């Protein structure tokens, strides 16, 4: 029988193929899917998150570990029942309309995954309707919007208006080089974070409310 700690260790080491093989094997062996998830994948990514906080791990380790975890999750997802995934929250992420800059948003996504959130990244140049549609589909707790340019950050307000108008319950969190707390307050965003590590803390705070 595949030891679930081995899956956990492979996630921490970012061994993508190893995680896929072990998860598949564990499933074939008839092990409880919910346990494979929590004691293998989630346990692994939680340790990665802790190692990042303590300064042992950096972004490259986080990204590779998150990739490994997501590959394992792909195998388990069809087998999981609703409520089996105990995540920290569901987040929909995207870059504002007219803006194609995405590296910051992608790093936020990785760090949120590292902290146990389920993240759907809708990409760049995302219009308000798409943000709202995906947030509804995923029953999102948070919509995260990024904008680099001063000319595109003005579009963030459109998303907030569209989301409120459609009765979407998700909190809106924003960031980007030109975005500030002042701007976030002005347009009625629920949260702002100046960098990816702070975004995790802010997301945790927002899901509690």
């Amino acid at each position, binding site marked *: 029988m595949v030891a679930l700690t081995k899956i956990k260790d492979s996630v921490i080491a970012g061994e993508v193929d190893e995680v896929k093989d072990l998860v598949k094997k564990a499933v074939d062996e008839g092990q409880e899917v919910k346990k494979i998830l929590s004691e293998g994948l989630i346990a692994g990514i939680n340790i990665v998150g802790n190692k990042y906080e303590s*300064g042992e791990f*950096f*972004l*490259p380790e986080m990204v590779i570990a998150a990739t490994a975890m997501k590959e394992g999750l792909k195998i388990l997802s069809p087998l999981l029942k609703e409520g089996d995934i105990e995540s920290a929250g569901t987040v929909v992420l995207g870059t504002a309309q007219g803006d*194609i*800059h995405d*590296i*910051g948003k992608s*790093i936020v996504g990785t760090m949120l995954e590292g902290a146990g959130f389920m993240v759907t990244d809708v990409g760049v140049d995302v219009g308000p309707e798409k943000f709202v549609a995906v947030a509804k589909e995923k029953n999102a707790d948070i919509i995260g919007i990024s904008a680099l*340019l*001063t*000319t*595109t950050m*003005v579009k963030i307000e459109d998303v907030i208006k569209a989301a409120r108008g459609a009765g979407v319950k998700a909190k809106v969190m924003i960031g980007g*080089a*030109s975005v*500030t707390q*002042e701007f976030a307050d002005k347009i009625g965003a629920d949260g702002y974070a100046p*960098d*990816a*590590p702070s975004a995790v803390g802010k997301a945790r705070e927002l899901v509690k409310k």
Partner: protein
Amino acid sequence: MSKPGISFLSQEELNDIHSASVKILEKTGIKVMSHKALDILKKAGAKVDYEANHATIPGALVGEALKRVPKTITYGARNSENDFVLDKQTPHFTTTGMPAFVLDGETGERRSSVTADLACFTRIADYLKNVHSVWPMIVTTDVPGPLQCLMEFITIARNTTKHLEHEALTALDAQYQVEIATAIVGSKEQLKKKPINSAVQCVFSPLTYEKGLIEGSIEYGKAGVPVVVMPMPLAGTTGPVTPAGTMALNNAEFLGNLVILELANPGAPVLYSPGVGVSNFKTGYHRWAPEASLMHLGLTQLARYYELPSEVGVMGGGSKLLDAQAGYQKAISIIAALLMTPDIALGVGGLGGCISAETLIIDNEIIDYALRYLLGLEIDDETLAVDVIDKVGPGGNFLGEKHTLQYFREGWVPEISDMDTFEVWQRKGSKAIAEVAKEKTKEILATHKVAPLPEDVEKEIARVLKRAEAEFLKAS
């Protein structure tokens, strides 16, 4: 004069970077988000996929583009005394570009930048000896988004008679700027002959040309306005973690862009401008590090190998305050960077993500020191002064010598840096350099006047603004 020099990459290494870049263009290719640009590439024989917005570019096209691009450019200015030539002999300086925040000298507060700030900073830049070109040092966040670009250009045009550098987010932005510049110089031909404006075009790393930006550059090229192509990969996040890889990537992004611009407008003036950096692996932000300066140095050398005019950042850093960190970060790499002689050295006035008027003054002094350093020393019979030494003799002094009188004024003297003894400095108020710089900015703003634009130009500006506003209202 014997000038200090610098050597860095070998010819073989320069060739290796070039070959790697060509391989990237031929194999990995570029995402080109403009069908207009894809058409241009397809017509020239590149392999193009319109659905994926992708093209691979054959090495032969790179070779042709490098042959077509002008090797020197004459930059014009509203006041022709401010014209200068980009001929790889002397660096000229431009202000840092486009942060959205100001470090307010009065309140010490970091706040969003507005049009009035840009007007003041431009006037200071107009005054300073070591600034030759003005790139809007801040974004006019008090102006509606689509009009910001245009308003920034108009503001700098009104507040300096030096060369103007800006950028376009769309072809229309470029067109409006060309129209205003044409009104200032009098005709399209004159603008082409001696452009009073140039424009930065960033590349989105890795390997992506954004639609508005590349179409803006094509528009500039039609008018003969030089385009400063500036890829900005960050080693480890948007470029390979190993610096050489990010250099090869940056170079590939430049070359592919050059191919498009030279096919669109053969002979269009283009500057080589690396914007590389290295990543902070804790946050994904960028970090100040020697590797970033070294990459810039190597790419400046590569630009010279290509015989291209270049624009390179020389004064970057991460400090948000005008403090010791800002000072040492700016000073530490400027001399090496300038020894490689980029045509335009970029970064005057910048702090971490913002700008301050005081920093403009201080950077002007740092540059002045560096420029004197670059000139080197004269070693000959006159300067060896063996006769004078003999005359003065052991234990004598040189102050009263005719030789001293003849040459002492050639020695470099700082404009604002403190040179006094402790007691005298104390008597003068024990001022820190930031305070001295602040007093200087007040003095400049109170006394330095810039000639307003002629009435006919202001009329043209009004016409352009009206059309721009209509365009903006139409879009919203």
